[in-house]
């Protein structure tokens, strides 16, 4: 089997605290993520999902275990600067609070920040900035001041800033948690687009089921361990297990499960609302026949 894009082996992490008996937030976690995949990492607060993101981006070093990105071990200490930059350029990260990740006072200057750090020639930066701003639908705001934009717009600027480094993978660490429904919708469609159209690997950390439903694959973490891994349809089958770890399945799926339990035969996937509507419509037709 070919080398996966990201390979995580027996990863554990314990935050260093004053009291010695701090319990690990990640316990012997193993995971493989292929290039171009759209993976949602689900879990309640404190399940270890944000720690996982920080480990992949080398903000933290694991207590034990290994992470390989494109076959390269990134958990070694004293990595050379060029290698570190190369890694951070390959795997970009968008954080939760839109206010705390924008650096410049003008939108386009902020988007240029990454490529500037990488020493990209001026003319090339200009081209990239214009292109990525168009990709996230924010080109007309190029000259605006970030603090006057809405949360959703700021978050799309942050995405553009990462895209401008030409990453192969972007990690979204609860990037929609502080947004209103409109902002969330815009950011989600931007994320979907860059995965589907540009083939960028997406690792999306979230606790919104409706958002996770869009992914190719869902990984559920609870108490630092992986408890479920599979397609949304597979993961949503485990309604009780999800509820135990504080997660709720989408309402449409919940309804289908309830109907099935009442003895109604509804066969097929029930991930999106369209799926659910199709199932109910079809089964009512069958009943009529």
């Amino acid at each position, binding site marked *: 089997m070919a080398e996966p894009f990201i390979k995580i082996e027996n990863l554990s992490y314990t935050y260093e605290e004053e009291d010695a008996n701090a319990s690990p937030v990640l316990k012997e976690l193993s995971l493989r993520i292929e290039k171009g995949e759209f993976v949602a990492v689900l879990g309640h607060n404190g399940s270890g999902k944000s720690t996982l993101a920080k480990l992949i*981006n080398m*903000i933290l070093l694991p207590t034990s275990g290994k992470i390989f990105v494109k076959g390269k071990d990134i958990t070694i200490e004293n990595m050379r*600067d060029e290698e570190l*930059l190369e890694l*951070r*350029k390959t795997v*970009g*990260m968008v*954080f939760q*609070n839109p*206010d*705390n*990740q*924008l*650096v*410049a*006072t*003008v939108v*386009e*200057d902020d988007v*240029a*920040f*990454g*490529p*500037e*750090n*990488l*020493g*990209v*020639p*001026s003319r090339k*930066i*200009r081209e990239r*900035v214009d292109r990525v701003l168009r990709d996230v639908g924010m080109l007309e705001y190029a000259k605006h*001041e*970030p*603090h006057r934009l809405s949360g959703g717009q700021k978050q799309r600027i942050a995405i553009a*800033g*990462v895209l401008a*480094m030409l990453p192969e993978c972007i990690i979204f660490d609860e990037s929609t948690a502080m947004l209103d429904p409109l902002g969330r919708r815009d950011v989600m469609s931007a994320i979907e687009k860059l995965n589907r159209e540009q083939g960028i690997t997406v690792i999306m950390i979230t606790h919104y089921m409706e958002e996770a439903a869009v992914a190719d694959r869902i990984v559920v973490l609870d108490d630092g361990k992986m408890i479920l891994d599979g397609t949304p349809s597979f993961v949503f089958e485990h309604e009780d297990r999800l509820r135990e770890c504080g997660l709720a399945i989408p309402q449409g799926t919940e309804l289908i499960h309830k109907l099935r339990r009442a003895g109604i035969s509804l066969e097929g996937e029930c991930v999106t609302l369209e799926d659910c509507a199709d199932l109910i419509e079809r089964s009512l037709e069958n009943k009529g026949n």
Partner: protein
Amino acid sequence: MKGISFGQYYPARSPLHSLDPRVKIILTLLYIVCSFLCKNVLSYALLLLSALLLVALGRIPLRIVLRGLRGVLFVLAFTALLNVFWTSGEVLLFEWKFIKIYLEGIYSAVFIMIRIAALIIGTGMLMTYTTTPIALTNAIEDLLSPLKKLHVPVHTFAMMMTIALRFIPTLTEETDRIMTAQKARGADFSSGGLIARAKALIPVLIPLFVSAFNRAGDLATAMECRCYHGGEGRTRMNVRHMRFVDVIPLFLIVAFGAALIVFNILAIGYTL
């Protein structure tokens, strides 16, 4: 506090707005030097005229510029009065008990007012009104870049300035929000003596500092993730190349200074 705008930048399309910020900084310094070259009626008249010309070139409503002067009105009036009453000379205009007003006093009061006003208007027009803070920061970094050879961390200072400018509106909003939250718990910021008021600010300042620290931590992480590693090997999206039109103003200001010196030698009009 919504819609707060930091600094005095006034967006418009004008020759001054499009001028290279580096040139504007040099012009400002030279303009200040020129204002101190003035010694007689003609040169002060020219100084006043130049300030008005700058306002016209920057296409900024005079009302906005005059509003900027409002803050220093008291200082202006005070220094003018000092000059009127304390300058002695040969032509006595008015005398009452111990108060003596000389013609020289009137002249020097008018001169000092023109100088202060022209300085404020001139520097304002050349820099704050027509240049965004970020452009100004970049220009300062460029102009100071020779100091890098002496191991002065020019880039670091410029980065600090940029981040400060970026976070001023955010933290202003935050302060407003925390004050509202504490007011909702009965905080009283507007009554009591000085000590009571200072004490009432503690519930605002502590959360504000905590939040600022958290933001700083978040921002540092985000910057690292975007490959920030200091100024070394860094490029810039907007590199300004000096154009011919950027050089013209430099010649103009030198000519302006030369004219002032000539006026001084000729001692045209009343001279102090």
